[in-house]
Structure formats: structure tokens, C-alpha cells
């Protein structure tokens, strides 16, 4: 980004550097806020439908445009032309505020997402904390939507959303803390710089937790309880239609992208890759490509998960969050902190190995505990069954 | 730093109470035995401490000191001398026995009972150990609340437990407030809360009126707790209403808090004033002794009788104290007499704790079986409950001061001191001894145990459905009483081990006034 600023000042010598920077930022923000949503939503709906279709042994969209590529645009147009309804008895202001807030909450995260070397809205010293903090806005939007719809199902859904988001925010934050601990900074740039070996390989447990929690945060299958059609029709946005519904839709897919992007930054080394550097435009472009590739890969993984796993029951979902992810996360946190403080693991390589070993140990312990608990539950269940028979 | 005996003894019960409060309330067995176990720890520690205590030195030992509330200049100061060691031991012993006894007899709200009891123990021990007025006051008040609840919640419904509990609470609180004001006055003039330091400074020397006020303020608090006539009327009510273990602790330890306060605080702070008022306080002591004995004699309620006997017996203590304070002469024949009187007073506290504690246990024994304490309802029980008869006989005899048992030694020492220093008082006080024999033998022994055993009368009061142990004293009751009987005999036959420490401390305290 500094490169662009330089380029701009060289192009317009009379332009002051701060002004140039301001212009660049505004342009960047505009791209992120207006262009990215549309592009991303269209691209990812297409991709998702294709992927799911493949998994389910179907072809997927194939009518609109070549290979059905224009399907997304078609849907968008359909959305825009639909009737905009505000239900009677709804809390009008809140009802209308909610969809916008849903998008804003996500867009704000873009500000600290390093999409390429040197390309970042602002590299805050508390970058990752900011991401977490802003995440609350999305929750707020859901609550507002659910409440203001004056619809029983919408409200129930909102409750579920909050319960789920609160529950999974904690393991997510723990995973982030593990990363921050290892990187020694909350600044996105520093985190990327710390990943000579991507954290995926040194902190697999943290990655797993983060990944799972992320899926839950977005509310995608198998954690899509909030919009479980069979239980609560379609969730908090059941009363929404047309453009307002589209906003939620956009918000969701942007959230998908952003969280995948954050995961990339935290665990896959962000834009890093051979040849990527801040020094040249080319290097930056290369970095962007790496970033995009990694992100898409993660999104693909999420879709894969969606296509593979059945939906959780609500109590299982909460149990999984509170009784598995949180304890495992805490255990990992302690283990990682210990490894980092061990004096004889001075060299980076040794430290990587140590971290990996600690993570593997945590996995073993966690699996052992789970299997033990499962066995006990099963025996209790069997016994109660036997008692019932007798 | 040395092994922190005092802190551990004081706070282990608290830790135990906290842990016990975390045990689910329906696991009564675990709560009961855990509490008993916890109370054993301070008991063992106090015994070890006694063994390690250097007996030839009458001063404070095992001192601990730490800054506590800097803005108040209050310190966490603890220490024991020969006065407090027997009392601490008495507290831990009686607590353990009470908990053990209660483990069998308390049926309702078990958890609260045991938790409160342990907290009570902490408060009581704290009073005996603290050497800082703030700390002293805090512990003093801590003990109040659990006792209040013990009386109020576990009291016998027909004895108006709420009334009694509130009476107890208010009485003590009035005294506490007066004491607190006096403490503050002392602090404002001396700038320290350190009991030892204040003792050596002699507070309020330059404002006699204030000193007198402070003296009587503190006196009131301790006199109510002891209790002296005419501040005693809370005692029979509280005793009657309290559950057995509560009565035991009330008589055995709580009354000693007042006595201890007299020796540790009032006497060293205001020796001259104490001397000045000694004739008056001596009269109060005599009234307490004789009046308590007379009222005991007129009672038909066994527990109330013993409660009044406490008033009488603590009168002996007061007499000893007054004798020790009635002169400030430290030359030898007089100093010896004063030290003997003070030792006798302290020993009287210890003995009273053991004996009257035992008597209350024994009342509990019969009460658990019959749910009555009316002396007229019994008769001829010695044939039916021979072991109980024997134990009661021994305890009663110890109480009336039969030589060879504990009560005699302290009475002897008290009178030995008093006869030298204030002979007139001693001669009058002797009357109480005869009266004591009369009410113990006439009322308790004769009405309960002697005479003809009547099957109909017994069947009317005995309730076999609620009593699951043997008719005569059950094993746990015997175990509860055994240590007390042992100490009655030990102190009566060979008091040197306990008197050594007491005597050294008394001599030291009187010598330094």
C-alpha cells in the first residue's frame, strides 16, 4: 500500500503524502465495502453450490452462463426485485437497522485483514483483538433482527444465535490467544511475520479449535441451528425479504470470507509464500494470490464440512463447545505457554518441534478423555436400558 | 520463622468450615466426621504447643506479628502465655468433644451446625491468642454470631430459643460496645493497640475520669460474659435453650472469654483502678457465689440449675481475681498469695470448663432419652443407669469441690490467696461451698438417681422410638465424657503439669503490674 502511495506521489508531485495516503485508504475502503461484497457473494454462492453438488453427486448450477457461472447474478437480480416487506407489529426502526448492521459488522473486520504484503486497512497494534471485538456487532444485528420481527421463531432463533455465538467465541478467543502467545503480538503484520513455519503445523490443535469455532461463529452447517428449517423455519431472518434479506445473505458470505481470511492470516502464514514481498508490486500481487488461494482452500474445506456432517442437536452443540473445545483449548494454552517458556528450547526449530509435540500430546489426552467419557456414558445408558428391561 | 502454631490453631477450623460448607448438604456423614477430624488438628497442635512451651518462662511465647491494617496501626499479633495455653487447650478439647457428641445427636440442618461450630471455635481461640486490641475485638465478635445461631436454630422449641438467643446477643453486644469505646479511648491516648505495650505504658494515666469510664466499660463487657451478678440473666436462658453441645461450649469456653479478658486486659491496663475498686468487685463476686448457689438450689430444671451453678462457680474465679488485684504489693509473702489467688482463678476457669462442660453433656444424655429436664420426673435412676450414675456422681463431686478432684484444687488456691489478702471476703465466700454441696447432692443426685425407681414414671418420659442407643450411657457418650473425667482426676490428684504454666504466668503478670 505504501508502494501505491509512493506511486501516487510520484505521479502527482504536488500531492502531499498524507493526502495520498488518505486517498488510497478511501479507495481501498470503497473497494472493500462496495465491490467486494457483490463479487464475493456471487463467487462463493456459485462455488458453494458447485462443491455441494459434487459432493452429493450432482452437477449443480449449469444453466445461467457458461457452467452456470452467472447463476449468482441471476439470484441477485431476483433478490433486488422482490417486494420489500415490513411485518405489522414489527419494531420498524430496529427492523430496518438490523440488516445494515449485519453487513457493517463484517466489513469492519476488513480493516485489519492483510490481503497482500503491505495491503491492509490499518495495521492496528491490537489487530486481532479488534477482530474479536467487532464480532459482537454481528451478534447485535442478529438479536435486533430476531426481536424486532415480532415473530416467535425469529426470537427463538436469536436466542440460539446468541447462545451459540457466546459459547463458541470463547474457544475461538482461546485459540487466538495461543497464536498471540506464540507470535508475541496482536498485530496482524507481526503474526504473519512470526510464521516462518505456518502455525497450522506447529499449533494444529489451536487451528482445529479456531476452525471449528469459526464455522460455528458464521453459523454454517453443521452448526446452523439458528436457521434450522425443520425447527424454527429459517431463523432470525424469517420475516425478511428482498434487499434486506440480501443484506443478511451478503453478510454471511462476507463473514465466511473474512473468517477464512483471518484463519489464513493466523495459521497459514497469510500472504506469505515464495516470492511474495512488500518490496515490489509484483511481489505484492503474488502475495495477494497466495492469500486468496489459501483462503479459498479454507472456504472449500468449510463447504466440504457442510456437505459431510449432519446438523448438531442444540444441547450437543453447546456441550461440544463448553465441554470439549474450551477445556482442550485451555489445556493447549497451558501446554504452549510451558513450551515457550522452557529454557532449553532456545532455537526456533526446537521450539517448533516442542510446540508440535505439546499439541500432539494434548490431542492424545483429549481423545483419551473423550473415549473414557463415552465409554462411561454408554455403560450408564446400557445399564439403564437393562434396568428398564428387567 | 518458627512454626506458626497460633495461626494454624486459629484458622484451621475456619478452613475446615469452608471446606465443610462445600460438601453437599445431604452428605451428613461426611460433614460430621470431617468436622470432627478437622477439630482434632488444633487439638493436637495445642497439645504439641503445650509440650513445647517453656514452662519456666511466664511470658509470651510463639509470638507472631504482621502488619494488618496500617491505617489503623493495627497489627496481626498473637502469642500465648501460661494463662492462655490451658484455655486454648480447653477450647480445642471441648470443641472436639462437642462435635463428636453432636455427630450422633444433631439431626436437623447438620451442615450449618458443623460449619458454625468450627467458626465458633476459630473465634474463641482467636480471643485467647490475640495480642492486639483490634484483633481481640474482631475475634470477640466473631464468636458471638455462631453462638447466636446455634441457640436460635438448634434450641429446643419449648425453651423459647429465639428469645434466649437474642437476649444473649444483646447482652453481649452492649458489653462489646462499651468495651470498644474504651479501647478506642485507649488507642487515642497511647497510639497503639498492642496489649502488651499498653500494659506496660499504663493508659489514660493523665485523665482519671476517662480512665474510670474506660475501666467500667471494659469491666461491663467482661462481667457480662463471665457472667457476674447482676449481669447474669442471659445465662440460664441461653443455656436452657441451647443444644447440648452449645451449652457445653457456652459454659466451657465462652464464659472464659470474659475471665480471660479480665486477666489479659483489664488487670494489666488498670491495676491501680482495679485495686481501688477491688472491695466493690469482691462484693459482686461474693454475691455471685452465694446468690448463684441459692438460686440453683431453688431450681427444678436440671439445665437451669447447672447454669446458675456456673454463676456461682465463676464467682470463685472473680474472688481469686479480686484477691490478686486487691493489693499491688510485690514483696514475697503477698506476691505469693496473689499469684496463688490468680493461679487459682485461672485454674478455676479451666476446671469449670471441664466440669460444667461435662455436666451439660450429662444433662444432654438424659435429655436425649427422655426429652425432659424436670427433676421431679426422675427418680431411682441409679439402678437403671448405673454407669450414668457413676459418671454424674464423679462430675458432680468435682463440681462441689471434693478433694481429689479438680474443683477442689482451684477452690483451695482461690481461698488460700483470698484468706491472706481479704480474709473477711474469704470467710463469707466459704458459705457457698456448703450450699454447692447441698444443691448438687440434694437436687441432682437425690432427685434423679436416688429414691425409688418407678416404671410408670419412667415409661411416661422415656421415648424408645427416638433413642437408638443403649439405655445406659452409650459408647459415644462414654467416650465423650472420658477425657473430661480424666482431667478432673488428673488435675485433682496431680495438678503440677497445668499449674506450672499458669503459675509462672500469674507470677509474671502480677510482678509486672
Amino acid at each position: 500500500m505504501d508502494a501505491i502511495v509512493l506511486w501516487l506521489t510520484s505521479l502527482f508531485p504536488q500531492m502531499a503524502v498524507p493526502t495520498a495516503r488518505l486517498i488510497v485508504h478511501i479507495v481501498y475502503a470503497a473497494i472493500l465495502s462496495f465491490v467486494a461484497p457483490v463479487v464475493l457473494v456471487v463467487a462463493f454462492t456459485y462455488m458453494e453450490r458447485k462443491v455441494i453438488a459434487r459432493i452429493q453427486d450432482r452437477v449443480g448450477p449449469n444453466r445461467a452462463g457458461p457452467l452456470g457461472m452467472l447463476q449468482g447474478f441471476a439470484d441477485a437480480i431476483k433478490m433486488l426485485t422482490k417486494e420489500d416487506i415490513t411485518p405489522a407489529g414489527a419494531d420498524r426502526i430496529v427492523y430496518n437497522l438490523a440488516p445494515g448492521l449485519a453487513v457493517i459488522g463484517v466489513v469492519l473486520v476488513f480493516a485489519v485483514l492483510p490481503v497482500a504484503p503491505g495491503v491492509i486497512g490499518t495495521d492496528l497494534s491490537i489487530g486481532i483483538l479488534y477482530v474479536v471485538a467487532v464480532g459482537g456487532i454481528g451478534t447485535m444485528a442478529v438479536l435486533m433482527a430476531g426481536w424486532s420481527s415480532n415473530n416467535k421463531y425469529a426470537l427463538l432463533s436469536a436466542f440460539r444465535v446468541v447462545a451459540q455465538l457466546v459459547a463458541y467465541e470463547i474457544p475461538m478467543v482461546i485459540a487466538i490467544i495461543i497464536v498471540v502467545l506464540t507470535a508475541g503480538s496482536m498485530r496482524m503484520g507481526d503474526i504473519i511475520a512470526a510464521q516462518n513455519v505456518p502455525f497450522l503445523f506447529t499449533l494444529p490443535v489451536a487451528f482445529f479449535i479456531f476452525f471449528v469455532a469459526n464455522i460455528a461463529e458464521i453459523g454454517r452447517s453443521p452448526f446452523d441451528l439458528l436457521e434450522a428449517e425443520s425447527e424454527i423455519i429459517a431463523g432470525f431472518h424469517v420475516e425478511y425479504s428482498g434487499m434486506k434479506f440480501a443484506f443478511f445473505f451478503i453478510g454471511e458470505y462476507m463473514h465466511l470470507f473474512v473468517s477464512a481470511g483471518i484463519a489464513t492470516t493466523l495459521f497459514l502464514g497469510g500472504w506469505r509464500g515464495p516470492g511474495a514481498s512488500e518490496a515490489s508490486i509484483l511481489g505484492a500481487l503474488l502475495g495477494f494470490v497466495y492469500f486468496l488461494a489459501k483462503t479459498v482452500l479454507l472456504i472449500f474445506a468449510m463447504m466440504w464440512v457442510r456437505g459431510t456432517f449432519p446438523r448438531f442437536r442444540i444441547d450437543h452443540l453447546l456441550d461440544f463447545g463448553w465441554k470439549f473445545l474450551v477445556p482442550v483449548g485451555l489445556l493447549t494454552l497451558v501446554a504452549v505457554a510451558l513450551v515457550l517458556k522452557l529454557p532449553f528450547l532456545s532455537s526456533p526449530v526446537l521450539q517448533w518441534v516442542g510446540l508440535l509435540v505439546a499439541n500432539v500430546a494434548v490431542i492424545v489426552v483429549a481423545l483419551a478423555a473423550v473415549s473414557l467419557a463415552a465409554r462411561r456414558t454408554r455403560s450408564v445408558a446400557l445399564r439403564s436400558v437393562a434396568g428398564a428391561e428387567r | 520463622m518458627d512454626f506458626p502454631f497460633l495461626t494454624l490453631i486459629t484458622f484451621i477450623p475456619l478452613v475446615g468450615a469452608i471446606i465443610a460448607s462445600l460438601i453437599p448438604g445431604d452428605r451428613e456423614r461426611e460433614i460430621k466426621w470431617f468436622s470432627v477430624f478437622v477439630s482434632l488438628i488444633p487439638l493436637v497442635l495445642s497439645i504439641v504447643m503445650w509440650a513445647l512451651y517453656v514452662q519456666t518462662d511466664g511470658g509470651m511465647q510463639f509470638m507472631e506479628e504482621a502488619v494488618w491494617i496500617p491505617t489503623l496501626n493495627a497489627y496481626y499479633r498473637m502469642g500465648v502465655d501460661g494463662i492462655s495455653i490451658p484455655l486454648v487447650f480447653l477450647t480445642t478439647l471441648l470443641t472436639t468433644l462437642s462435635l463428636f457428641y453432636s455427630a450422633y445427636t444433631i439431626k436437623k440442618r447438620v451442615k450449618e451446625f458443623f460449619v458454625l461450630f468450627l467458626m465458633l471455635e476459630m473465634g474463641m481461640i482467636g480471643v485467647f491468642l490475640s495480642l492486639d486490641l483490634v484483633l481481640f475485638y474482631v475475634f470477640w465478635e466473631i464468636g458471638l454470631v455462631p453462638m447466636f445461631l446455634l441457640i436460635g436454630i438448634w434450641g429446643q422449641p419449648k425453651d423459647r430459643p429465639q428469645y434466649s438467643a437474642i437476649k444473649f446477643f444483646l447482652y453481649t453486644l452492649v458489653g462489646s460496645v462499651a468495651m470498644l469505646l474504651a479501647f478506642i479511648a485507649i488507642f487515642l491516648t497511647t497510639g497503639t493497640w498492642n496489649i502488651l505495650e499498653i500494659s506496660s505504658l499504663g493508659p489514660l494515666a493523665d485523665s482519671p475520669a476517662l480512665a474510670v469510664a474506660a475501666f467500667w466499660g471494659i469491666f461491663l463487657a467482661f462481667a457480662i460474659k463471665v457472667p457476674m451478678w447482676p449481669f447474669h440473666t442471659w445465662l440460664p436462658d441461653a443455656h436452657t435453650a441451647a443444644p447440648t453441645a452449645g451449652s457445653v461450649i457456652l459454659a466451657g469456653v465462652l464464659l472464659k472469654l470474659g475471665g480471660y479478658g479480665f486477666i489479659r486486659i483489664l488487670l494489666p491496663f488498670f491495676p491501680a483502678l482495679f485495686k481501688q475498686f477491688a472491695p466493690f468487685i469482691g462484693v459482686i463476686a461474693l454475691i455471685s457465689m452465694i446468690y448463684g448457689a441459692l438460686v440453683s438450689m431453688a431450681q427444678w430444671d436440671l439445665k437451669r440449675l447447672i447454669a446458675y451453678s456456673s454463676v456461682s462457680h465463676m464467682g470463685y474465679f472473680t474472688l481469686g481475681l479480686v484477691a490478686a488485684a486487691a493489693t499491688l504489693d510485690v514483696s514475697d509473702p503477698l506476691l505469693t498469695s496473689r499469684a496463688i489467688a490468680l493461679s487459682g482463678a485461672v485454674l478455676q476457669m479451666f476446671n469449670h470448663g471441664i466440669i460444667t462442660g461435662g455436666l451439660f453433656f450429662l444433662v444432654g444424655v438424659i435429655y436425649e432419652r427422655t426429652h425432659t429436664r424436670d427433676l421431679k420426673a426422675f427418680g431411682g435412676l441409679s439402678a437403671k443407669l448405673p454407669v450414668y450414675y457413676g459418671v454424674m456422681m464423679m462430675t458432680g463431686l468435682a463440681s462441689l469441690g471434693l478433694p481429689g478432684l479438680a474443683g477442689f484444687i482451684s477452690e483451695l488456691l482461690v481461698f488460700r490467696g483470698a484468706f491472706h489478702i481479704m480474709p473477711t471476703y474469704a470467710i463469707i465466700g466459704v458459705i457457698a461451698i456448703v450450699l454447692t454441696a447441698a444443691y448438687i447432692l440434694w437436687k441432682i443426685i437425690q432427685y434423679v438417681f436416688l429414691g425409688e425407681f418407678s416404671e410408670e414414671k419412667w415409661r411416661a418420659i422415656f421415648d424408645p422410638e427416638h433413642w437408638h442407643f443403649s439405655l445406659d450411657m452409650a459408647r459415644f457418650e462414654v467416650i465423650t465424657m472420658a477425657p473430661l473425667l480424666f482431667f478432673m482426676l488428673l488435675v485433682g490428684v496431680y495438678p503440677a503439669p497445668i499449674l506450672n504454666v499458669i503459675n509462672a504466668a500469674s507470677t509474671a503478670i502480677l510482678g509486672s503490674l
Partner: protein
Amino acid sequence: MEFFFNLVPLIPLIPLLAFAAIVLFTHRNNRLSSNIAIGGIALSTLVSWGVVLATILAGEHVQVEGWELPIPWLPTGTTVFNTGFAVDGFTAAMLFMVPFVCTMIFIYSQGYMNLGQPNQDPRYARFFAYISLFAAGMLGLVVADNLLLLFISWEVMGLCSYLLIGFWSFRDRDNEQHIDEAQVKRARAAALKAFITTRVGDVLLFSGLALLFSYTGTLTFREIFRPDMLEHLGSISLLGMPAVTVIALLAFGGAVGKSAQFPLHVWLPDAMEGPTPVSALIHAATMVAAGVYLVARMLPLFVAGFETANAPALQWVAVIGAITAFFGATIGLAQDDIKRVLAYSTISQLGYMMMGLGLGSLVAGIFHLLTHAFFKALLFLGSGSVIHGMEHGHHAAGAHGQTSQHDDGFSANDMKTMGGLRHKMPRTFWPYMAGTLALVGIVPFAGFWSKDEILAEAFQRWQESGALGLPFWVWLAGTLGALITALYMGRQIALVFWGEPRHEAATHAHESPNSMTGPLMVLAVFALIGGLANAPFLGSPLHHFMGGVHEASEVVHSATVSFNFAVAGLSTVVALLGLLGGWAIYRNYRAGEVEPFQRWLGPIFTLLRNKYYVDELYQLVIIRPVVWLADQVFNFDNRWVVDPLVNLVGAVGRAAADISLLFDKVAVDSGLVEGTAKAFNAFGGWLRQTQTGRVQNYLLVVAVTVLMLLGLYLYL
């Protein structure tokens, strides 16, 4: 010989251990328990006699100066109080008598309590535990080297006395048939009376002890009796007297209670409610002797500061002793209960001992104590044997269907139901006769020598002073007492052993078991020869043995009184006259007749006999009008002055107690305490109106307050 001295602590300890063993372990096994008790006391006797032997062999150095074993016991101020044991001639003399008599009585008890019989006492083992404890107390008292240990033992005996008098004071209807309810009540009253009455004396002693302790800082006899200490005590003035006299009088108060001296003697006749061995053991031979022992032991205190002849404390002892000796004897004259006669005889004889001591003669008093212990134990045991025989006879009669058991008012103790028993119970009769002769004072029985020494002492003192002063009256009382003693003993043996049986029970009475008669015979031997211990023609060996124990105090001197034939002759004649007279008068007395004495003495006899009506009073029988003079004197004793005094104190005490209670409830509790509470309650009721229960109200108040404070702070 030092070996035996080292065993001294064992003497009281062995019976104590026996007591503990029985109470704790063997109380379910009756035979084992009694054997333990007997074995314990027998062992103790052996040790004691060893000590006595050692003392005799050790010569004057031990006999006079004593052997001591101090034990540090009680730290007092800057000093340490020692307790311990000591043996000197005096102690040794007591040690010869006490455990031996005890042993005899223990053995006797085994039979008396019907070991192995169907009517064995249900609390058999407990009985032996008590008497073992008693023996421990008495022995501890004897070997104590200080007043405190003495006092402890003293009280232990008091306790045992209480327990044993009240031994039949409760009953279990399931197990006991032979105890009637009246007896239960009497036993209860008697036990309590005994304990409280002696306690009055004890408190006096306790005060004396505390005073002594206060002034001297020690209670060890040897140190108290040091001349400088006595001088120091004599120099302190207390209540207008030398302190030493006050202390001595207080100690004598204790002795009066314990030894049943006038006016605290009332408990002793009632104490006969206990089993007979108890009467023998405690109320005749040993415990009551403790008072005498105490006075003897403390004799230097009584004398200190004065000439022996006019020491006020000592004079009191003599006066009280003389009064008791005479009065006790007269009452004994009119009693029908065989044990009561002996009880009053005991009181009277104790008076003799006090007389002896009061005259300043240690040896005279103690000599009589020793001989009296033997023959009085013998008499009591004999009477027990008689009663036992009568009871069996009664049972046998009941079994023959001639009388029903409970409703005829039969008392096995009543001499007027007996008669002619010398043929039925010969092995009881002969020892009993020996005891009687000893008590009456016929040559050469023990009582003659000892009583004579006292009378001789008094006589000599009278001769020395030459006036009709105190010694004369003492001598007169003694001699008249001897006459009356002989009279009532003559009456007794005549009623019991001569004449015809006056009741079915006496007809069917038969001899007691060997365990009972055996001790009687042994004791009879001592009653016969015991007097030789200090017989003048043998050179008064006892005098030499123990006479010097108080020499060190430099105030008590031992001088031998020479044998005075005039005195001895007079008393022998008097005794023979009385004995034969009594025997002759009552020999042919028949059931239902008016008593000869009553016929002759008229009102005086009724006066004496009213004692009997008091017993009836306890049994709730109406007292008939009697001659008013007799009534006056009797009442003086039992209804107006002495007994009522005790009762009055009790009544006043109870009234005071009730008033105190009332005062406590009405004034202190309701008025002061609850009034305060009510005032606060009203104030609180008014104040609680502010308690709206609304948080925001409270908060608003807080806010306004803060605002106001802020304003104050800013603008003031």
C-alpha cells in the same frame, strides 16, 4: 528396714487400686470383686505392719522425728507446695490398728452381704468398691505428712460415708425384695444429713487450712510445728485472738463434725441406716476417729502460746468432749435399737478421747482411740451378726407361715424382740461379751486401761489445780459416763442374750456364717489384750513409742501419768455396779412390759427415750404427748435448737433462694433487661417506617445526602 518405709505410699494406694479395679473391670463378678477388696486391704495390712515393725526397730529417731517422703505437687507463686507421706510413732500406732480392723470388717462383710446366697445384695460389688475407697481414704489420712493430703483423704471418707449410709437409698423393684420403702427414705435422709452436717465441719476445717496456708505458706506438719513458726502464728492477732488459736478452733470444728461431737453429733445415729459393717467400719472404729486423730495431730496448734493447762483452744476441746461423753451415754440408756445404742456409745466414747486430748494428753486420747476401735468394731460386728441372725430367723419364721413378712412392723434391730440368744448364737455371744467388758472398763480388758488413763489424767489435773475447775468437771463427767455406759451395756446384753425370746424371729434365729464370726473372735482377742499396749505395769510402752511426736514443737510435753489406784478402783466399781445392775434389771424383761428404767426414772427416762420418737417421726408416726421437761431437753437437742438450726439454715437458704429467683425474674429480668428491650423495640418500630423496601428510595437518599455533603464541603 528402710525398705518398708519406701512402701508407705502403697498403704493407701493398694485399696485405691482395688477400688478402681472393681469399678472399672470386675463389678460384674461379685466374688472376684470382694476378693480383690479383701486381698487389697490384707496386703495393705501386711505392709502397714511391716512399717510398724520397722518403726519399732528404728527406735526413737523415727518414732519421734518421723520419716518423710516429700513429693513436689503444686507450684504456688514463687514456691512449690509439697505433698507427701510421713511415718512417726503416732502414725505407726494408727497403722497398726486401722488396716487390721478394716481387714476384719471386710472379711465379715463378705458374709454379711450374703455372698452366694439367694438374697445376696444386688449391689454387692459396689459395696466392696466403696469400702475399699474408704479404706484408702483413712489410710491416706494416717500417712499424710501435710494437712492438705489429710484433708483430701478426710473428704474422700466423707464421700464414702455418704455413699455407704445411702447404700440402700434407692431400689430396683425387679431385683430387691428385702428392702422396704421406709428404709429407702430413711437412708436417703440419713446420707444427706451426714454429708451436709459433716460438710459444715469440713468447711470450718477448710477455712482453718486456708488460713494456716496463708500465714505460713506451708501445710506440712513438721514445718508448721517448728517453734518459730508457732511463735509467728501466735504473734498474729485475728478476731481478738492469736491466729493460732483461731486456726486450732476451726480445725476442731472439723473434728467436731467428723467425730460427731456435740453439737454436730446428730448425723451419727441416723448413719446406722447403712449396712452394719459400714457402721462398724466408719462410724465406730475408724472414720469418726479421724477427728480425734486430727486434733491429736494438730495438738501443738491448740497449745501454742499458752500453758497447757489454760490454753483456750484446748479447754474447748475438753469441755466439748466432756459434754459429749456424758450426753451420748445418757441417750444410749434409753434406746431400743441395738445399733443406736452402740452409736450413742460411740459418740460418748469419742467424747472421752476428746477429753483426753483436751487435757493435753496425746497418749491418753490416742490410746483410747486404739482400744475403742477394736472393741467398738467388735461390738458393731457382733450386733450385725445378731441382726443377721434375727433376719434369718425372721425369714425362717415367715417360711413357717407364722408371720407375714412385711406388715408386722418387725425390726431386726430392736433389742426388745430379741432375747436368749446366747444359746442360739454362742460364737457371737462370747466375743460380744468381751467387747462389752472392754467398753465398760473391767480389768483386764482393753477399755479399762485406756479409759482409766484419761480419768487418771483428769484426776491428777484436778489434784494439781486443787479447785473445782475444769479438770474436776471433766473427771466427774467421765466417771458418771462410765457408770451410765455400764448400765446401758448391761441392759443391752441382758435384753439381747438373756431372758426368753421375745419374738418368733428370736426363736428361729441361728448362728451366722464363719466369715462373720471369725473376725469377731480375732477382734475379741484384741479387746482382751489390747490394753496391754500401754499398761502401766508394763511401763506404758505406747507412751514411749509415740509420746514424743510433738516434742519438736516445744509446746506439747509428754509426761506419764502414774497409775492411780483410787481412780482405777472407783471406775472399776462403778463399771461393775452398772453392768451388773443393768443386767439384773433387764434379765427377766418380757415383751410388752414397761421397762424397769422407765418405771423408776419416769420423766427422765422418757426424756432420754424421746430419741426414739424422733425416729418414729421420720417414719411418720404420731408423737404422743410427753412430760414437758423431757420435751424441753429433748427438743433442745433435736427440735428447737440443734437440729432445727440446721433445718432453719436450710429453710432460710431455700427461702432466700426462692426470693432471689423471684427478684431475678421480676426486677432484674423483666424490669431492667426487658424494659430496655421494649424501649428499643418502640424506637425501632418508629424508625422502621423509613424502610420502604424500595431500593431506589434508599439510593435517592444516598444521592441527596452526598449532594448535601458536597454542598457543605464546598460552601462551608
